[in-house]
């Protein structure tokens, strides 16, 4: 492998950030698919949103425009809201069912 390639790999650049964001996102997706505890699912969603956030930041650094950062701020707010509402619903469910296992929730199907 040519040294300059290794150089560019060692040199932390936008690509690394993008890959990081994508990885975070994918981790979130994977987590969502494999775990069954509602709280954990919510956290996975957080991961995904953050992955998206990182991508945003990277791009607006690259493009030198601020919209991305604004977007990220809003995204964080939105994520917070979603989690808040989500948790309240979780509480509701827990009160009625005293379980947090998403797989138990299959009354509605077919």
């Amino acid at each position, binding site marked *: 492998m040519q040294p300059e390639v290794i150089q560019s790999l060692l040199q932390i650049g936008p690509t690394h950030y993008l890959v990081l964001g994508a990885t975070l996102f994918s981790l979130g*997706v994977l987590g*969502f*698919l*494999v*775990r*069954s505890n509602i709280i954990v*699912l919510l956290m996975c969603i957080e991961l995904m949103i953050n992955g998206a956030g990182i991508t945003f930041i990277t791009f607006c650094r690259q493009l030198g425009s601020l919209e991305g950062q604004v977007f990220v701020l809003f995204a964080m707010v939105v994520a917070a809201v979603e989690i808040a509402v989500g948790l309240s619903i979780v509480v509701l469910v827990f009160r009625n069912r005293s379980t947090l296992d*998403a*797989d138990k*929730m*299959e*009354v*509605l*199907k*077919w």
Partner: protein
Amino acid sequence: MVEGRQVFDLLWLVPAIPLFGAIFNCLLGARAGNLIVSIVGCGSIGLAFALSVCIFRAFLDLPPEDRMIEFCVFQWIAAGNFLAPIDLLLDPLSMAMITMVSGVSFLIHVYSVGYMEKDKCFARYFFYLNLFVFFMLTLVLAGNFLVLYIGWEGVGLCSYLLISFWYEKRTAAAAGLKAFVVTRFGDFFFALGIMLVFVQFGTIHFHSVFEDPAKVIDSRMAMWIALLIFAGAVGKSAQIPLHTWLPDAMEAPTPVSALIHAATMVTAGVYLVARCYPIFELSPVSLQIVGITGLLTAFISATVALVHTDIKRILAYSTVSQLGHMFLALGVGAPAAAVFHLLTHAFAKALLFLGSGAVIHALHDEMDIRNMGGLRQYIPATFYTFTIGALAMSGIPGLAGFFSKDAILHATFVNGGFLMWALIVITASMTGFYTFRIIFMAFFGEKRWDVHIHHPGTVMVIPLVLLALLAAVGGYMGVPHVLGGGDRISNFLAPNFGNPEVHATAEPSNKGVALAAEDETAVVESEEAAESEKVLEGVTAETLAEGEGHAPAGSPEMLLMLVSAVMAFSGVGLAYFFYVTPEGREVPAMLSDKFGAVYNILTNAWYFDKVYKAVFIDTYMLMSEFFWKAVDTAVIDHAVRGVAGSLLGGGSIISSLQLGLVRWYATVMVLGAIIIILYI
């Protein structure tokens, strides 16, 4: 009394009056009592008869050349160039027919009043009967094919209704259906014939079709048309192979058998062929077929009549056989003779049926002649009239049947050749035999019954007497020249069939029949025909020159008459020997043992019915069943259900993928996302 030509404008009334009678009896008959019903029923027919007699008188005043009156009632069907007005045609043929039909029906109506008095459905009976007369008169008066077809189907319907008149009898219902369907099968061909006529001529109007058919169609096409029409006639007139319905039709009340199945309807076929004769003349082949069919029918049904024991069935088979005679006459180019025989036979056979009706009535609906006997002294009037009828039927010289049958035999000999002549003469003797078999078994010998005799009332006797009169003297309308008579009938019918002499002597087509009968090759036939053409001209010329009376052909004609008379007598004698003389008594039984096979064939009427059932009815039912079960239900319906079912199945599968698990939903979403990303 209307006089002169304007009486012809009343022509439409002849069928109309019976129709009014029918309508009256249909609507009000149930409420009005038997008396009124019978007055209306007979009265309407009587009126029609009277009217047709007046018309006849006026008709005779006309010079022969313009004895052809057309009368259009109204435009019926008109679509494109297909025009079918209701128009009536009065010419010698139809004139003779309406007179006979209305007359005989009148007598039979009167007779029925006595015969049916006990029946609860009196009104219905007369409704049907009047309706029948209406259709029959329409048939014979028709001025174009479609009007004739109206009458044709109409009489079929009435016959159906009357055969199954006593609808609670299973046999009656069956017989009615059989009669309608079998004749309908003939009508199918007739209808095709009409269409073919229309397609060829562009019109179905008799006058314009028959004026000069040779201009429009060649002999081949003529053959097709002729055969189709003839098939219709075969159905209606119960000729082989469509004759099987007539014997069963004897389920009808006896007067009906007399009127419909002896005198009028069954002769419609003969009338039709006679009416369409110009087309038949164009194709020798068709005439051959007509003749041969007639001959076979005459012979076969006569043989069957020999062994039957049901009085009405014997008469039925004899009817078939006599109709066979008529077709033979048509086939050998003697249409006048055919019509002549039609008339005389109508009288005689109506008489016989009514007589048998009287017998049956007397013996409380006993029909088997083996359970009769010795009736002579109990119901003498019936006996004498019946005997006259029988004599006339079997062609004993001096009575009606003799002259007409002789005319046919003569024509057969001249144009049909020896073989056909021989066969028909044998048939003649059989006629004598079976007719008198009835008489000897029913009226002679010891009585084989013990019931209180019903004596026929005057109402029933008078028609018998009148008919006996007609049967006796009816023949004098056609005494041949050799006997010094003027052969009036054929002269009268000349406008329809041309000069009688021409037909009575050689005619190419009929020569052809002879040759066919002696089976020679068609080639010879044609040239023979060609030269006999010349012969024909010669003969006609000469006969015309010599004028009426003693032709050199005369002496052989006398000879023929003699032979036929002898044969008839021999038949009667044989019957006498078998059924009266003590030594002859056991011969029939002996014969039936000896020739068991033949006897079985005859008693089973040559197995026509059984074969038809096996071949046509059963296969048809099987096929229909198959189509229903296999095609309709199994294929088409299952295809439809299959589609529906697969949809429902798919639905259940797809919605069962709806597991209800959040993570599964997410998985599907991710998979979808991946697919889309790869796809885009």
